[in-house]
């Protein structure tokens, strides 16, 4: 614990040093940049925002010595305040100015900054004037100042952190790999440790820091064994480093539990992340030195990567766990604030919201600030969805309406999707109040991988020997949605005992056909089974409307004789266009209007239907809709828009179908008569 307190002090100092470094434009630029990326990764972003602003002010002041002075804060063309930090962040994420321009993503940047497409030009200009130079300076200083090899390491590290993909799995794989390769005898022990860590990751989604700590310790344990075996300077130093990180996490979690004050918490968190970062650096430097000393030991290079990976994971986990814990506490504070404000809108204690330019002077834990962030994030999410949807329409892709999530505006539904769907999107949404960058969406994986056999893991390790490959695999197309697991989702399937459980023989269905009561061979028609429509008939005008109607009636009659009572049980008496005979023209017109009026609002249909047709039963309405309304629409489409037949689209051409124009245009006056009389004819024949 002593080492930890030392580290804390160091990190506190370091924080001050960072700002000083910047002001003095020292070589430590790379460190600074590193901290930028690293911190921004968690929700300390707002804190970072303050830091960034300081740096920017200083930087611009220095620059202005030889150039003109740039005013702050920055307003864009339409007098909207530009969030420089966000702008910088977004562009950095897109790969810098050049990359953004090349990919023509300035519109996206403007949107991301909440300025809309109109501000594309000014956003670009502002970036060039204010931030481009800073960006160059940061990245250049970074690569200039450090030895190439080291820079590469850091670069990888930064990349890794930015992706946020590093999770316990990788450590586990690495550890397992090392074990399999070198410490076969200790394989089982190590597996226990990794198993433990796996389990804890699985269950730690509730942000249990202790468990995360446990897991990271577990994986370090696994690593340690190998290190003890190999008995190497490098290894012992790496081990120390990892232990330090662990101590830190440990201390942090203890601190966390006894500390209720949010602000202090965030302070500590930041400290921890900074010191953890420092530790990593130390580790890398150590490793680097040793590597230079003993270049012939390829084995060391291998393990250095290993240590790096696990350290990185440990730190990531710290960040991760903190993220969750913090999120929950600040979220509840925010929610209660919103609730309170909604209840007592004129309460003086709420006060006025300060101008956004002054926001940075307020703590980032202010509930109103979080509420605004949450709102912002929600809006962004919906925009993104809108975009997705429109692109679908362009592609003429069809899908369930449930995909149109932006329809779901009420809070409950959103919450619903949040807890049930496990969409990456949903995850983002839930932590959006902390303004996480989108690449943080993938948190700790939900699935346990307990089933991996030793052979399999070996296989995996062989595949994953390249570190970049691991990145690739873990980042490879996150699933759109994952399978939900838990007692709320799976069916209870009893073990197979080999004994057949007798199912209730009562429910075998009621036999309808062949009729049970008719023992002798029923009078079948003469048609053979599977007979199609005859090619020719004896009608005077084969194929005309009357001919077809006659054959339909003929067929219907035949069926009726065959089926007997079944004909009615299967509701064949309510099928076909004859259903319309029991409807008056007035009612038919009303029905058509109703469909048209209700086509947009799915759920109001039935209540309206009962209001308009109080005396008509549901059966009749539905029957009319399917047997008459749709058939007529279909007929109309067949003749008027034969290339675009879709009788299922209720919004289309509703006004035209069956009305005086549409109907008369289709049918010659005489041909309408058989429609009405056909049924009677049929009845007479019967």
């Amino acid at each position: 614990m002593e080492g930890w307190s030392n580290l804390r002090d160091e990190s506190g100092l370091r924080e001050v040093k960072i700002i000083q470094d910047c002001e003095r434009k020292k070589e430590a630029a790379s460190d600074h940049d590193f901290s930028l990326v690293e911190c921004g990764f968690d929700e300390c972003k707002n804190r970072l925002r303050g830091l960034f602003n300081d740096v920017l002010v200083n930087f611009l002041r220095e620059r202005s010595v030889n150039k003109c002075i740039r005013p702050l804060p920055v307003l864009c063309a339409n007098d909207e305040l530009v969030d420089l930090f966000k702008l910088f962040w977004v562009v950095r994420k897109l790969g810098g100015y050049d990359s953004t321009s090349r990919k023509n993503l300035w519109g996206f940047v403007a949107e991301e900054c909440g300025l809309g497409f109109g501000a594309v030009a000014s956003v670009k200009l502002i970036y060039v004037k204010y931030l481009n130079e800073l960006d160059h300076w940061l990245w250049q200083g970074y690569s200039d100042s450090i030895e190439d090899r080291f820079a590469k390491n850091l670069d990888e590290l930064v990349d890794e952190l930015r992706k946020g993909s590093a999770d316990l799995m990788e450590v586990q794989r690495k550890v397992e790999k090392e074990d399999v390769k070198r410490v076969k005898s200790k394989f089982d022990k190590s597996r226990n440790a990794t198993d433990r860590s796996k389990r804890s990751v699985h269950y730690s989604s509730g942000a249990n820091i202790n468990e995360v700590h446990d897991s990271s310790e577990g994986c370090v344990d696994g690593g340690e064994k190998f290190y003890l075996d190999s008995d190497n300077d490098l290894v012992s130093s790496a081990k120390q480093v990892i232990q330090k990180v662990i101590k830190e996490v440990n201390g942090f979690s203890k601190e966390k539990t006894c500390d209720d004050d949010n602000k202090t918490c965030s302070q500590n968190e930041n400290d921890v992340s900074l010191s953890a970062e420092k530790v990593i650096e130390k580790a890398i430097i150590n490793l680097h030195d040793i590597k230079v000393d003993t270049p012939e030991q390829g084995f060391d290079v291998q393990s250095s990567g290993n240590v790096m990976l696990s350290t990185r994971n440990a730190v990531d986990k710290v960040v991760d766990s903190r993220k969750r814990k913090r999120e929950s506490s600040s979220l509840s504070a925010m929610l209660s604030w919103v609730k309170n404000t909604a209840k007592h809108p004129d309460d003086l204690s709420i006060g006025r919201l300060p101008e956004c330019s002054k926001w940075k002077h307020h703590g980032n834990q202010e509930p109103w600030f979080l509420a605004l962030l949450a709102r912002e994030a929600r809006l962004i999410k919906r925009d993104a969805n809108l975009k997705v949807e429109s692109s679908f329409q362009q592609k003429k892709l069809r899908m369930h309406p449930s995909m149109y999530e932006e329809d779901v505006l009420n809070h409950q539904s959103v919450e619903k999707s949040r807890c049930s769907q496990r969409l990456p999107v949903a995850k983002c949404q839930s932590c959006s109040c902390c303004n996480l960058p989108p690449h943080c969406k993938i948190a700790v994986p939900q699935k346990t991988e307990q089933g991996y056999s030793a052979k399999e893991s070996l296989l995996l390790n062989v595949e994953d020997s390249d570190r970049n490959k691991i990145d690739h695999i873990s980042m490879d197309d996150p699933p759109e949605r994952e399978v939900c697991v838990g007692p709320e989702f799976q069916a209870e399937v009893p073990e197979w005992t080999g004994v057949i459980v007798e199912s209730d023989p009562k429910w075998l269905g009621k036999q309808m056909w062949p009729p049970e009561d008719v023992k002798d061979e029923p009078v079948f028609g003469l048609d053979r089974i599977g007979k199609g429509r005859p090619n020719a008939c004896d009608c005077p005008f084969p194929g005309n409307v009357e001919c077809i109607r006659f054959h339909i009636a003929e067929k219907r009659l035949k069926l009726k004789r065959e089926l007997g009572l079944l004909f009615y049980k299967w509701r064949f008496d309510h099928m076909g266009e004859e259903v319309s005979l029991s409807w008056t023209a007035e009612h038919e017109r009303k029905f058509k209007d109703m469909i048209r009026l209700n086509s947009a609002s799915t759920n109001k249909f039935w209540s309206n239907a009962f209001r308009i047709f109080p005396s008509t039963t549901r059966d009749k309405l539905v029957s009319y809709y399917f047997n008459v309304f749709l058939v007529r629409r279909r007929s109309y489409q067949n003749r008027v828009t034969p290339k675009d037949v879709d009788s299922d689209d209720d919004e289309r051409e509703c006004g035209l179908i069956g009305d005086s124009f549409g109907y008369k245009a289709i049918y010659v006056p005489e041909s309408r008569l058989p429609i009405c009389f056909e049924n009677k004819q049929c009845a007479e024949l019967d």
Partner: protein
Amino acid sequence: MRSKDRISYFYDGDVGNVYFGPNHPMKPHRLCMTHHLVLAYQLHKKMEIYRPHKAYPVELAQFHSADYVEFLHRITPSTEHLFPNELAKYNLGEDCPVFENLFEFCQIYAGGTIDAAHRLNNELCDIAINWAGGLHHAKKCEASGFCYINDLVLGILELLKHHARVLYIDIDVHHGDGVEEAFYFTNRVMTVSFHKYGDMFFPGTGDVKEIGEREGKFYAINVPLKDGIDDNSFTRLFKTIISKVVETYLPGAIVLQCGADSLAGDRLGCFNLSIDGHAECVRFVKKFNLPLLITGGGGYTKENVARCWAFETGVLLDTELPNEIPENDYIKFFEPDYSLKIPGGHIENLNSKSYLGTIKMNVLENLRYIQHAPGVQMQEVPPDFYLPDFDEDEQNPDERMDQHTQDKQIQRDDEYYDGDNDNDHNMEDM
């Protein structure tokens, strides 16, 4: 080969007479049209038709949570505004609206699948058909994707009372997520789903990497496909994977969900399958001669749904249906040419050979793990089926005829049959 199988077909005259609401793509009336077409083709003479019982809430609660079932039972369009929280909790509303007679509708289609499973269990038939069933998205505690009660899960649970292992196959264009999820932890049910995946296509699950967990690991197979897959690639992939699955898993019964939205021209689908291609899958599964439960599923261009399912009923009865649809009350829906075949789709096939190859490799690779899995008691239930090899065209059909000696067909073979209805040649076409 003529039908020696005993076919039970389930239909209730009330099932088609519900209305999800304007513009809702799900039109249960397609079931009426299907039934009508089946009768128009005189197919009822070769099978037994049953009216299913209406499943009791307690039966539905075999899988679903009791509170969800209770709520479905209680809710009506006139009272739904009183329960906004519950509606959200159970995902009712947008996709899954509350309509008149909702619960009765669920009872009928679920009852059909349960009864079908009962009949299979009691060896009263070899194939049971319930076109009203197959609502594969419904979850244990919520509705999803037009599905309220997951009849497939209930049917499979019933089949599990008699069979150590049940194979579930899903050729709906959407992923069979409800069934997969329900049996994600068990090796007693293997779920295989062929579906469109990606581009946020509903329901979003069904990646090839979803393979099950715990005991169920490697017992969920997903075949994610892209837009516009055609008959050739689909049936080839289907046959390769399914034959390997059956050979490896040795199921005691098969449940086949025949969602017709994988057909070309479906309102919500994006595949290019013809009815022939779709039915080819049914024909192939039938050839395993295992107890087979056939259900419907999706299908949102209702004329095509009726065509497809009527044709597949014919396939199951070994009756090739002529292309000219016989006159019936709904003939107008089949305008303008009144034929059974549907025009091919025009969606570009985005499934490259290499993509399909990768998927196939992935699936077969995962299948290898279950061959040595100790969890499945492969030995306890000897395979009670005949495994046809779809590649061996030279298979002598006469030999196969001998396999079904316990034939109890409804109708004598020598009646109503002309030589041209003999379907032997179709077997060779494969």
